[in-house]
């Protein structure tokens, strides 16, 4: 059975940031919804305002794919068991709320170390803040040319 947007978002939140606590999960939810409502650039063009399109855009969220680098990725949204907190955060984000620290963020990643890259994924994003294990990046002007 296909998942609804709310279900997809709740599972993605749990998969990507389940161990980051409520703030970390809200930050990830904010990134996803920022992409959904992007005013321009790649995410506006590819997503077209659809949560499903954003989550399943290829090579964006590892959790949305069952394979990674050719091998099976067990940490994916289909293996998740979302709980009330994940649905609450999904509803919170869909309703338009954003974590203030991640109000403009379009990218995040886990550096698995103490230092965040200054740019991610490339010149289109500059490092803004670190929340838990995730570094968050806001769009530069170059992003809107993608």
């Amino acid at each position, binding site marked *: *059975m*296909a*998942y*609804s*947007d*709310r279900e997809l978002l709740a599972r993605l939140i749990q998969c990507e940031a389940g161990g980051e606590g409520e703030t970390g999960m809200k930050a990830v939810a904010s990134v996803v919804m920022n992409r959904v409502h992007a005013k321009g650039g790649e995410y506006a063009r590819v997503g077209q305002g659809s949560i499903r399109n954003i989550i399943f855009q290829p090579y964006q969220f590892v959790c949305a794919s069952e394979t990674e680098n050719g091998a099976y990725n067990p940490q994916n949204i*289909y*293996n998740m068991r979302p709980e009330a907190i994940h649905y609450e955060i999904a509803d919170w984000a869909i309703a338009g709320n954003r974590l203030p620290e991640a109000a403009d963020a379009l990218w995040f990643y886990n550096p698995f170390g103490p230092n965040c890259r200054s740019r991610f994924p490339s010149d289109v994003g500059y490092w803004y803040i670190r929340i838990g294990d995730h570094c968050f990046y806001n769009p530069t002007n170059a992003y809107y040319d993608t």
Partner: protein
Amino acid sequence: MIQNYMEQTDWTQEVQAGPRSSSAPMQPMQPQQEMQIRPWFPQEPQASQPSAAPEPAGLDMSCPMMSCQHSPTTNAEAYQGSLKSLLSRNVGYFIVATFLIGSEDTVVWQGILHTVGNDYLVIYQPDYNRYISADLYSLKFVEFHNTQSIPYFAGMNQWSGSKT
């Protein structure tokens, strides 16, 4: 409450059982393929060649045989070739439906296709435990995502996490 999705609505069966017009043109047909429901492409020979897209194991996007290959001659054939009939055949699946509001704006409703009426359709949203009725004539696009799984059944409290 949700009824059994496997039941056809009565008036649909009435239409299908209606008498065919005696002036309906005969179509060349291979007897062994009589019960096969496949999309018919004029360029391909009628022999059992695999169609370009794999036939989904649940959704019924094809046209009932002999009903969509020519201009309809009966009301039954005309109905089988309609959007209403296509939706009726796929009740029970999760859909994302886009409606046109006014001349430019669109609104999207997603959920399980529950009922198709004469000029309305009903969508059930398990996440919010509500039914939404919508104007069938404003419907522009419908996305069917679970192309390989079974429809939603009333007995399920939550779907079991299948891929599609």
